């Protein structure tokens, strides 16, 4: 079936065409005309807002298909499996006592600053405090099986991370001058929130969302892992860089675990995916500091990629989804 827009589609036609462009070509060839008809019927006589909502919903499913994040694709199922662990790790990474993490001082400062500060600093302080409070709410929502709320809170965590990066990009740090190095350091410290929050926000809503007790245990396990990893890193502090093989192990181990997804072993893969946002940035930062520059690190990264890509192919089996019309 080819996609032929209904006559007189007008503005809805433009929205439909844009939404359909997001679908993989094979799916569009197979289902495009059918989607167009259902869209036309659903939006007939509707106002602009209703049509826009319908188009957004259509586009969102196209993006999910395009990125492999539907609830039946391996990527989507991996995210669903990793979601409780991710919610837990975001909580664990914010439990600072005993980890020697410099972020604890920043939180105390923000809490004491009050509201009598400049507008941009107020945004920064609220973001700093938000990154402590929202992961707590997120973990509670995940433990209670309120996944719609958990996903929204994941998006909030990522947005708070973006707000902090905006502040770091345009404002001088207290007691120092702005530098690219310090900005990079601030950004890498926020990677767990940016990546973890984003992964949670885009996780698909499955047919059976809440897994009850299993979810609560996974949230707890994630929180313990998040705390342990932050502690193993000695807090996010350049004065306390990891030595020897620690950064390599904390980078490679999660990556290797994620590869289990290729064999449909989702639990170890989910554990790897949940831990990766916590370890990747700081491990790379530590390695970069140890080897003395990003270009010296490049050969190592190339070697790791050369090992991981064939390993993924070796482990993998054909997972490309066939867009068949019929079941079975």
């Amino acid at each position: 079936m080819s996609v032929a827009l209904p006559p007189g589609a007008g503005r809805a036609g433009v929205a439909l065409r844009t939404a359909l462009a997001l679908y993989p070509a094979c799916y569009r060839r197979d289902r495009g005309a059918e989607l167009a008809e259902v869209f036309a019927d659903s939006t007939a006589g509707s106002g602009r807002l209703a049509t826009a909502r319908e188009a957004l919903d259509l586009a969102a499913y196209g993006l999910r298909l395009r990125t492999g994040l539907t609830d039946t694709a391996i990527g989507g199922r991996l995210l669903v499996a990793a979601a409780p662990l991710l919610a837990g790790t975001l909580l664990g990474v914010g439990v600072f006592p005993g980890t020697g993490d410099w972020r604890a001082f920043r939180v105390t400062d923000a809490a004491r600053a009050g509201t009598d500060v400049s507008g941009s600093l107020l945004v920064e302080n609220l973001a700093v405090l938000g990154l402590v409070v929202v992961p707590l709410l997120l973990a509670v929502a995940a433990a209670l099986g309120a996944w719609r709320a958990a996903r929204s809170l994941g998006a909030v965590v990522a947005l708070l991370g973006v707000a902090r990066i905006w502040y770091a990009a345009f404002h001088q740090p207290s007691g120092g001058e702005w530098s690219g190095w310090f900005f990079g350091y601030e950004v890498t410290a926020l990677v767990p929130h940016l990546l973890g929050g984003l992964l949670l926000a885009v996780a698909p809503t499955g047919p059976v969302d809440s897994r009850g007790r299993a979810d609560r245990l996974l949230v707890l396990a994630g929180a313990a892992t998040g705390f342990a990893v932050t502690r193993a890193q000695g807090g996010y502090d350049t004065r306390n860089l990891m030595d020897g093989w620690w950064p390599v192990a904390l980078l490679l181990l999660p990556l290797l675990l994620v590869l289990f997804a290729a064999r449909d072993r989702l639990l170890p893969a989910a554990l790897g995916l949940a831990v990766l946002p916590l370890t990747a940035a700081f491990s790379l930062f530590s390695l970069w500091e140890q080897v003395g520059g990003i270009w010296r690190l490049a050969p190592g990264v190339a070697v790791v990629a050369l090992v991981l890509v064939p390993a993924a192919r070796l482990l993998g089996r054909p997972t490309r989804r066939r867009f068949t019309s019929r079941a079975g």
Partner: protein
Amino acid sequence: MTERAMQEPTLLLLTALADAPRHGYALIQEVDAISGGRVKLRTGTLYGALDRLLQQGLIEVAAEEIVDGRARRTYALTGSGRDVLATEAERLRTVAAEAQRRLGGAVRPRGATA
């Protein structure tokens, strides 16, 4: 799937297909009617659910045709889909019957124990 409660949109879609095969827009209308207007499926959401149910083997494509120049694919329940729906309906019937029985019992003062 039978071990846990089925999500409402899935239940409504399977119910909409229980008496006859239907095409996409007819399914949206049926789900709207069955749920008393509470659940309004959008096109993307509908096709996400249909793709999942096709993959799970609970529904199948019964016909592909062009009607009045419009592409139309009709979906139908499979035997396995019918079994899953029957099991879910029985589970809901049991819960509903128990709720009715308890509601029909003697009215106790608030806070009183059995």
